């Protein structure tokens, strides 16, 4: 997309000079007045054409040293410029995604000149401020005309789309703790647990259930041994990640911030359960709605690595289905479970995270 801005002072001076040259040519004929007049008349259109040619022939490529970025960590950004045209590019302004990235060594508004048939590159540090998938690095380039009368800015046609993983924090801990206590769910509740035969053994005492006797071990040791009963969660947990349906073109910094908070909350919540060794099912949109079982640390890592780049719906219908699932608490599929719903649409609202029993 092209944007043109006029400089007030430059325009005023230009118009004044133009008027003077018109007046001059109205009273005198010949070369001097006409060259002045025509010269003043053509400089603006020619500037515009020159800028268009510059933009047409400048190729810009961006790359970052790693495939997956981590929020808050510095990475190396490489921007290459190649001028394939015949006209030099002079003082091209760099317009950066400063609202979502931090940069080292370059800043918004820096200028670069590239000679005809020249290749140049810039190396800089980039820090992505939010998790998610979005364009980073160079957003656009700007050109000024020779006398600073107007400037034209263009968006870079192929910007670099980074996948930034969220950080795992204690953002969800307090909330889940309180809910846990209030609703008496999960690890901290004694009520919702039942005894199961464990692996620990002890000697048989009169009164122990016959079923608890481990006959194999008893035969080997030649005395009666019973299993020590273990506690087991009566219910398991399903985490619903109800992401917003966002068209690719709608991504702006506000949406990125929202997605960042959402992902961080979701990952932190998952980590909250996983580190307690609680088995967790995550229902999240990865193109289509997918159920991910998570019991071990490795499961969590897999989930973490794929999460930031792939949370999306392939269609609006899919989003609708997700919303229905959340509203109906899983259609009975998670009937015996505790349901944690994180809704991106309600980020920073009261109902952002809800814990409930499945229907």
């Amino acid at each position, binding site marked *: 997309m092209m944007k043109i801005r006029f400089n007030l002072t430059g325009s005023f001076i230009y118009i004044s000079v133009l008027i003077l040259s*018109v007046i001059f*040519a*109205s*009273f*005198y*004929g*010949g*070369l*001097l*007045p*006409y*060259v*002045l*007049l*025509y*010269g003043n008349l*053509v*400089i603006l259109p*020619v*500037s515009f*054409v*020159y800028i268009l040619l510059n933009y047409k022939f400048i190729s810009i490529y961006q790359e970052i040293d790693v495939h997956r970025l981590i929020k808050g960590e510095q990475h190396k950004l490489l921007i*290459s410029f190649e001028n394939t045209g*015949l*006209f*030099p590019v*002079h*003082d091209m302004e760099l317009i950066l995604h400063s609202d979502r990235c931090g940069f080292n*060594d*370059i*800043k918004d508004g*820096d*200028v*670069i000149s590239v*000679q*005809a*048939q*020249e*290749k*140049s*590159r*810039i*190396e*800089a540090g980039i820090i992505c401020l939010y998790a998610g998938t979005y364009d980073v690095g160079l957003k656009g380039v700007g050109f000024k005309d*020779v*006398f*600073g009368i107007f400037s034209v800015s263009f968006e870079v*046609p*192929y910007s670099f*789309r980074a996948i930034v993983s969220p950080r795992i924090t204690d953002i969800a801990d307090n909330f889940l703790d309180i809910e846990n206590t209030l609703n008496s769910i999960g690890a901290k509740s004694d009520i919702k647990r039942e005894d199961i035969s464990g692996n620990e053994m002890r000697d048989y005492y009169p009164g122990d259930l016959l079923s608890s006797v481990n006959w194999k071990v008893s035969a080997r040791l030649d005395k009666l041994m019973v299993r020590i009963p273990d506690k087991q969660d009566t219910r398991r947990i399903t985490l619903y990640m109800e992401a917003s349906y966002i*068209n*690719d*073109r709608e991504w702006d910094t506000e949406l990125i911030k929202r997605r960042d908070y959402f992902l961080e909350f979701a990952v932190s919540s998952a980590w909250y359960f996983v580190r307690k060794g609680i088995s967790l099912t995550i229902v999240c949109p990865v193109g289509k709605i997918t159920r991910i079982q998570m019991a071990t640390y490795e499961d969590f890592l897999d989930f973490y690595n794929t999460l930031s780049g792939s949370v999306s719906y392939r269609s609006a219908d899919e989003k609708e289905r997700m919303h229905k699932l959340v509203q109906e608490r899983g259609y009975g599929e998670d009937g015996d479970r505790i349901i944690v719903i994180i809704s991106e649409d309600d980020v920073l609202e009261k109902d952002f995270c809800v814990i409930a029993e499945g229907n």
Partner: protein
Amino acid sequence: MGKMETGSLLLSVKMMFWKKISVLLQKEIKHILTVLVIISAGIEVYVMTGKNISTVYMNVYIHYTAGFLFFYTVLYLAFNVFTGSRSSALAVSSSAVMFSFLLRNTEVYDNANSRAGMFPIGILAGLVYIIWLLVRLLLSFRMSELVTVLLADLIMIIAFFNLGYFGSGSFTGRIIYISLFVLTASQINHKYPFAYFLLVMLFLFMIPIRKEPINWEPVVKVAVGVANKGREAARSLRYYFSDFGTGTAYQSGYSSFAKTGNSVVLTDRTEIKLKTKDNTGFTFTDEATGKRYRGKRVVYLTGGRAVDKNRIFDMLYSLYMHGVDKTDADLYIRNSKLNIGYVYLKTGDEIAPEGAIRLTNDNGIIEEGRKKRNHKKGYNIYAEYLDIDYGNPYLTYIIASPVEDADKALLSYEDMSLYANNILGIRFKEYFTGEEYLSWQGYKGYLEEDIDISQVSHRMKELAYDITKNCVSDYDKCNAIEAYLRQYTYSTTVESKVYGSTTDSEGMSKIADEFLFESGKGYCVHYACAMVMLLRLNGIPSRFNTGYRYAFPFERMEEYPVYGHNAHAWPSAYIKGFGWVSFEPTSAYTIAKDRTWHRQPAKIKGEEEILKEGEVYSLNNGTSPYPTPAVTGVEEFSKVTERNYGRMINTFKMLLIIGLGVIVVVIIMLLGPIFYRSLRYRISDQRGRIILDMEDIIFLIKGICDKAVYDRGVMSDYITLIPDKYREEYDKVYKIYYRLKYRSGNDMSGEEIVSKEEEIITRELRNKLYKEYKMKFLRIFYVKFKKAY
């Protein structure tokens, strides 16, 4: 970090050989231009000081100089690749000297023109170049450039003003000024690539330069044309809304007669347009001086009366009674025709010339003088009328000496018909019926309201008596009153306190009284009211006429516009034995006697003679002491019409040129990219062709699929968007494209990466998609067409 030069952040990856050349050339072209300016200025000054060098040789000289400078520059660049700038400057300087000597004896110097005083080309170019190089070595580059350019600017400006149009028309002059402009502009932002300024220069060389200043006339004409249109529109608006508001001054015009008494603003909007094939002027010889004069015909157009048949009968009867024959009648009566077209007129009245004998419109004969509904713009009345010269002494004699005790019944319809046919040459019966004639015979000639003197003041009665106390006949009385009133000052600015109306006797009395005894000034309404009341006080029936008084211009015209300020009011008096006669008491206009046709019995031989220019004097300018505003307006109008016509043609021409220009630009804009693309495709190598094909394919896919596409620049995205039947082919093609784009190194050509067959696959897919794209739009067009029809 503000400005990034080459350094740790901006690393120059590769400097191609011709990139160096491009950078150096830009700088060198700047130098060459500077040197060229100096040399060209030298030649111009040389020519201006009186040396006779033909333009052809001057141009040849410039070309040679430029050629040499380029040659030296290339040499300098070539040396510069291997050595430093000082050494290369030295090397080039010596070669310049050498070349100059070598070229000394070539035929260029042997021709007559060069012997006449032309400085040897090579030597001059070489010397200037050497000086230039030395200056560059001594001063810093920027300073030398700036100083040279500013000095050259100053010299050229002085030369322009002091040596006339210095350099205009010659190629050298063009080079000087265009180069100087570009060089000066480049000094303002000297870091900006000089390539841009070269582009500006290219455009400037293509633009024609004239010796005359800008001719603003066509623009002014167009602006005036637009302003006139705007003024006309404003007039229309103002006219149609003239009833609104409570201002004390009203605008002149026929429709404004209902409200009178106060100040009036003369307007020049066209209210009606007249068309006639008759002569609108006449010529005569003044017997006293022997000079020939030209006079203007004046027509009085009355509103709301239609054909006043009784008036015609009265006059014919009087003529009959005086034994007037055709020869006599021709002295002061002629049959005329006039078309009256309504323009901005808000009335239902039929406007017709006095003496009308038949009025028709597009629907047939007009019987009534007034319609309830207003006539629309474009309404036409076709009038046949008797144009009567009331100033003719023969006629005034008849008017002044009526036949007493005449019995109208004695002249039958048949006899009158015969008589009228004889003297007027008209078929009387076609115009007047027997019933109408009979009705006239029983009619006394005027209405009761024509003698109404109610509400007349005592002082007016006394005045009426005083004015006419010495008069014998009614006609004398009329003339006396007319003459008396004409002493009053004509003025359109009147502070009226009475708010009278011209529609009844009471209103007219008020206006007349105020005019005669209080204000002492007024315009036609005041004069007419006063005369009407004074006539009635003298026992003469009289009436108030409204309409227009129009004096035809000398020039024949297709149409004669009658303006708002031509609207007029005048009185008519019923003179026994003759009937109704109009008078002109308004001092701003001529009386009947002063606009007589001057026909004498001996000179009635055909129509008026046409005189040569220069022999003729305007009657009004020559003899009348009264101002004739209408005439002036008409003369001006004829000039204005011509000017408007000229403007219209100019405007049309300009619009045509602009239109053609726009069409050409649009065609260039539409066809240019297509041509450029096809040219690019033709000259591209295999790699370029495949890349172009791929660009086309992506464009066509976007066009074919109906979804909004977000272009991430990833070719595989399009697999879901392309029609199913091409999916497999596209899968191959985009992989070919990626292979070509990313596997290519500098040491690998396109042919090594992609086979000929693969190129054909890509092209074929593009062609198929193009057909698909075309079909889609044809389908859309077909559906829309079907829906529409």
